[in-house]
């Protein structure tokens, strides 16, 4: 029966090839576009981790509500030391966070001022890698009142390296204060709105001007070995540090969590549409097969092939077709995803628009291995479902009439 089913596929090579091509190209389209969307989403997620929020953040509970400058975390050095030695935590850093104004002679803009410890900051965040050699560095020397701003903000403020920028903000005592900073680095991430809003200075400079006591900060950020463990880690740490509020990345940036779920839904929807279309194509083809082989099916029934066996034979034929198409489609998908996953898809022509919504101009398609297995199973299921109707049609044949058919 398996032999007949397999060989029957190749009776009409053209028709079978068309079906196989349809399945393969459908899968290629579906998997590649899923990989592209997934790659974009993962890039967005990873960039957010690497430049913006890390995996887990600790704050004074009051700070999260209204970013009150006085709501600091106490004993930060001790906490950082302890956290850095915790299993599953790769690195920890502390930050002072203020809202203020950045001004040059030309213009001023509202910004989030981030005070950092350059050494530990580099272990948690990768922003320093987004400063090219012509654009300075990330606090590479001990110069006082240095500031790192984004390319987008520099453009807005008409500033460049070594330009002076005056930051104005509220100090620890609630007084408005300010200081002049010299631009030592200009960074650029793939998220231009975020870039415009964030400037970086050293904690020691900010403490001096802002009078934030030593050993206190507004934020401790953790980089974990596995970002998927963030929720678990946050929960574990909350028990150990009841005086601070600990949030994982999904709580800090619900958009990321939503996007992750949204991508899964979109990929599911894509595959349902593609597999649905394939299913109808297969039904059509197999109905033609049944119609063309009416006499043969009648003969098989006449000589003693049970309905169950005829049903299975039609089903096997369909599944073989689907599997060949799926195999070719998956190989093509793997190759194309691997290729573009390495060289990237360059959308530089629309880079500005992409960056305005937080996506890079070059995207790298990627798809997890288990997705291919999922798709194979779904294609087999589609093949089985699509074969039911033609197989039932075959069973309704009357052997005596079928044998007489031309």
């Amino acid at each position, binding site marked *: 029966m398996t032999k007949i089913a397999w060989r029957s596929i190749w009776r009409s090579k053209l028709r079978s090839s068309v079906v196989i091509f349809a399945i393969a190209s459908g899968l290629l389209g579906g998997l590649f576009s899923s990989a592209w969307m997934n790659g974009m989403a993962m890039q967005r997620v990873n960039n957010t981790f690497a430049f913006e929020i890390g995996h887990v953040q600790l704050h004074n509970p009051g700070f999260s509500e209204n970013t009150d400058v006085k709501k600091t975390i106490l004993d930060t050095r001790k906490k950082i030391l302890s956290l850095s030695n915790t299993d599953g935590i790769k690195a920890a850093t502390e930050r002072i966070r203020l809202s203020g104004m950045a001004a040059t002679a030309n213009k001023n803009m509202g910004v989030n001022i981030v005070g950092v410890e350059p050494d530990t900051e580099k272990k948690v965040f990768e922003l320093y890698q987004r400063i090219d050699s012509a654009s300075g560095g990330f606090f590479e020397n001990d110069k006082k009142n240095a500031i790192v701003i984004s390319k987008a903000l520099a453009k807005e403020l008409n500033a460049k390296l070594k330009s002076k920028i005056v930051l104005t903000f509220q100090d620890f005592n609630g007084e408005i204060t300010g200081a002049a900073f010299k631009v030592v680095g200009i960074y650029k991430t793939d998220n231009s709105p975020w870039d415009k809003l964030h400037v970086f200075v050293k904690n020691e400079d900010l403490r001096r001007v802002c009078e934030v006591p030593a050993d206190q900060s507004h934020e401790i950020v953790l980089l974990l070995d596995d970002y998927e463990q963030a929720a678990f880690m946050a929960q574990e740490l909350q028990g150990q540090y009841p005086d601070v509020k600990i949030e994982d990345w999904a709580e800090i940036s619900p958009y990321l969590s939503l996007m992750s779920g949204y991508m899964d839904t979109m990929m599911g929807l894509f595959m349902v549409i593609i597999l649905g279309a394939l299913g109808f194509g297969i039904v059509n083809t197999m109905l033609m097969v049944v119609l063309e082989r009416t006499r043969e099916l009648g003969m098989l029934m*006449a000589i*003693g092939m*049970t*309905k169950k066996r005829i049903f299975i034979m039609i089903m096997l034929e369909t599944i073989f077709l689907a599997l060949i198409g799926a195999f070719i489609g998956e190989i093509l998908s793997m190759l194309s995803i691997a290729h573009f996953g390495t060289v990237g898809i360059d959308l530089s022509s629309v880079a500005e628009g992409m960056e305005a919504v937080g996506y890079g101009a070059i995207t790298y398609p990627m798809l997890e291995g288990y997705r291919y297995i999922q798709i194979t199973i779904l294609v087999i299921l589609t093949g089985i479902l699509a074969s039911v109707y033609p197989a039932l049609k075959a069973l309704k044949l009357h052997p005596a009439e079928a*044998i007489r058919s031309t």
Partner: protein
Amino acid sequence: MSIHVNKLTKTYHETEIPVHAVNGIDLSFEKGEFAAIVGPSGCGKTTLMNMIGGLDVPTSGNVVVDGSVMSELSSNKLIDFRLRNIGFVFQAYNLIPVLSAKENVEFIMQLQNWNKKEMENRTLALLESVGLGEKINSKPNQLSGGQQQRVAVARALASKPKFILADEPTANLDSIATNQLLEIMEKLNREENMTFIFATHDQRVMDKAKRVITLDDGKVISDVLKNQ
């Protein structure tokens, strides 16, 4: 082995006027018969053969094979009954085009779950007996009409049936192929006492048949047992 056809009728109602394709036929066949059912086109030969073979259901009457009333068998039991008791040879050969001659013959034994070695031995012996020992790996499209029909005979014999129904087996064959086929079937009938029932309008088959049953308008108008 005995086949009893009792008051068999088959009426079609495709138009307002009922058509009695088979109209109250009574017949009996015993083991070793070499019988031809003959008559003009539309006389009911194929309809009668289909009902004897359990491929069609009579409007009234019944066919009893070795005590089993075929119309009383369930669909699955009827398929199994055909598989184990009846060999079919069709006018258009009806081999499975994607299988070789050997695989076509083996197929019916696979349906009966034969042991592989026995199956192979019997297949080769059967193909030898119909003169196709050299063609076992040929696909149907590589065989002539006569050769295909001989494979069909080998396939019909493969399951060791009680009788073989051959509906116009020579209709598409030239005289040489017809003579070869008839010689093979005669030999099987003579040496193995295999029962053959033909539906035919081929004079050459009628000449070889030991019994000729003539139908007209769905009725038996003569049933002649020839002296051998």
